[in-house]
């Protein structure tokens, strides 16, 4: 079911003279319960797109419709019952308890003085339990860690009981565990509660794994939408970050820094050890070749008494190593030699 659509949406900023256009004629669709990740280089206008879609920023042209209603014509409190946001603005260490903070999300539902009714309190406690923030109920938000505060921010947004949750780089301060926790939580919301989730991120790996759909916001003021897999196969994600220093690893579906190889090396041996041996070789500047006649270097990994041994043949000298660290040091010497000549 279609929840949100844009019609010729043009985003950007008005200036004293003229305007800065960040994106033109967007025709975007968002379905109920769908999780969409916006990917794109820094400064391309992802935040402006999200704020415009959330009704916080006026579009330069075009319309955005939420369940058929004009997002920018809707009354603010009406919109707040449908769309909630988690932004990148850092919250000043507000001395409000977790409960007080999350209950701010009840704003569009409470009366003139903002007094919470029983239903409001129940909603707040429920979202706090669901987001694992109930333990911060009586703790000042300013005292929480970045990860904890991020969860409280999400809880505050959920307290608005939105149908669409918009998050701008929600994982930016989080370590890997917290990141997966948060993504898992968002995934659950979209699957179980049929909440639509729109978020921007720089974490391509995670986005590829979790998102139903990607919006690739490139520097040409255009957005390409599609499923992560289709876009990967079409190399569209690859094209998004055109940079001579970055290389896309097709088999693993991730981006790597393109290595600057100086020599080739022939690598054979135990399958389990090949991958990490290759990583060392590449880091030290050796392109791995599977052709025996190729390469100034021959590396063989063997198991001896159940322990790995690396045998490196270089300029007719044979060297045996018992760890990749030792081998790495040796490769470093060779590289320095090569660079000198």
């Amino acid at each position: 079911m279609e929840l949100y659509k844009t019609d010729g949406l043009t985003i950007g900023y008005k200036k004293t003279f003229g305007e800065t256009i960040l994106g033109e004629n967007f025709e975007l669709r968002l379905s109920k319960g769908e999780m969409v990740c916006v990917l794109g280089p820094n400064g391309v206008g992802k935040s402006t797109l999200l704020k415009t879609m959330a009704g916080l920023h006026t579009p330069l042209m075009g319309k955005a419709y939420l369940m058929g209603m004009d997002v920018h014509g809707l009354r603010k409190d009406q919109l707040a019952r449908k769309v909630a946001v988690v932004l990148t603005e850092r919250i000043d260490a507000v001395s409000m308890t977790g409960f007080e903070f999350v209950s701010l999300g009840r704003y569009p539902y409470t009366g003139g003085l903002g007094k919470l009714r029983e239903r409001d309190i129940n909603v707040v406690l429920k979202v706090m339990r669901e987001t694992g923030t109930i333990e911060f109920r009586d703790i000042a938000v300013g005292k929480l860690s970045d990860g904890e505060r991020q969860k409280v921010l999400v809880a505050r947004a959920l307290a608005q009981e939105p149908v669409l949750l918009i998050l701008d780089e929600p994982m930016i301060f989080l370590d890997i565990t917290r990141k997966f926790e948060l993504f898992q939580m968002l995934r659950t919301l979209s699957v179980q509660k049929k909440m639509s989730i729109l978020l921007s991120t720089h974490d391509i790996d995670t986005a590829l794994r979790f998102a139903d759909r990607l919006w690739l916001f490139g520097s040409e003021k255009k957005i390409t939408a599609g499923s992560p897999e289709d876009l990967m196969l079409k190399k569209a994600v690859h094209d998004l970050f055109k940079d001579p220093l970055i290389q896309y690893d097709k088999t693993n579906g991730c981006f790597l820094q393109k290595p600057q190889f100086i020599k080739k090396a022939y690598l054979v041996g135990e399958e389990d050890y090949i991958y990490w041996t290759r990583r060392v070789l590449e880091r030290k500047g050796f392109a791995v070749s599977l052709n025996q006649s190729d390469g100034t270097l021959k590396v063989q990994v063997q198991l001896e008494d159940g322990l790995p041994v690396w045998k490196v043949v270089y300029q007719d000298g044979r060297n045996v190593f018992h760890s990749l660290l030792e081998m790495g040091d040796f490769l470093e010497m060779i590289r320095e030699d090569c660079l000198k000549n």
Partner: protein
Amino acid sequence: MQEGLSQSKRQIYIMIALLFLLLFLFVNSLVFGSVPLSFSDVIGLLLFQEPRNLEVSTIILQFRLPRSATAVLAGVALSLSGLLMQTFFKNPLAGPYVLGINSGASFGVALIIFCGSLFPLGFFFSGVTRIAAAFLGAVFVFVLVFMISERLKNKMTLLIVGIMIGYFTSGLVSLLIFFSRASEIQSFLFWTFGSFRGVGFNQLAYFLPSVIVGVLFALWAIKPMNSLLLGEDYAASMGVDIKATKKKIILSGSILTGTTTAFCGPIAFLGIAVPHLCRWFFHTSNHRVLFPAVILMGADIALLAEIIAQLPGSGLTLPLNAVTALLGAPVVIWVIFFKKNI
């Protein structure tokens, strides 16, 4: 209610303590003054007993009661407008005095006095004109500071701008005084020192309703103010009408600061210090708690300052602004040193 029980209980206890302190200070403020009176005189009069002599009842009813009432109203008004401004400008050091809103109100009043000296019409000195002029002066400076703040990202530059606007308006005020008739100057100079003593019952009849109106406007802005603590984008996303809220805050802050300045002259430090004392005592930046807290604490501190200014037992009277500065400045320094948040 499961709203953090221990915390809210604690807050209610402090609130009750502040209320009792208010009663205690109020009675005491009636006792102390240039003519020494006793507790029993005051209590007796408050309980409608026949006074010791007519003089006692005149002193209490004609001078001290309006003075104490003025102190309470001014304390409430200035502290509340300090709270409004600190949230509005997201600046812990904002306040009616620092941002020059006081001076704007002074300018309005000075202009009226100046006009009064040109056209000797009693009308110009009536309470309503005075309040209107002070209010307009306050609104003018508030809007000016606000427009400048929209273009500034740095909190400290806003304060510098506020202080400069304050100096500029004070300069204009001095010029107006210079060109005013000698007979007006003395009363005006007395007024610029800041005092709770110049307000009689007939002026309280204007002062009280204006403060009530200002407080009601502020009450109307409590709900959005909590959301504004998260910044304007977040507030808007929760359904806050940012423009309307700003108007309410500017209106309320100007009424509160303007009327108080119109009657008591510029009074420093109450507006900036009291909200911080409240955040410190109540451990919260929740405006639903801070609002009543600031009202009670503001009244308490103003009465305390007035009592100290009477220098009980000495027969001397100190300048009020000296006392508020001695009480308030350490609080401000403490805020700068130990607190990064508002």
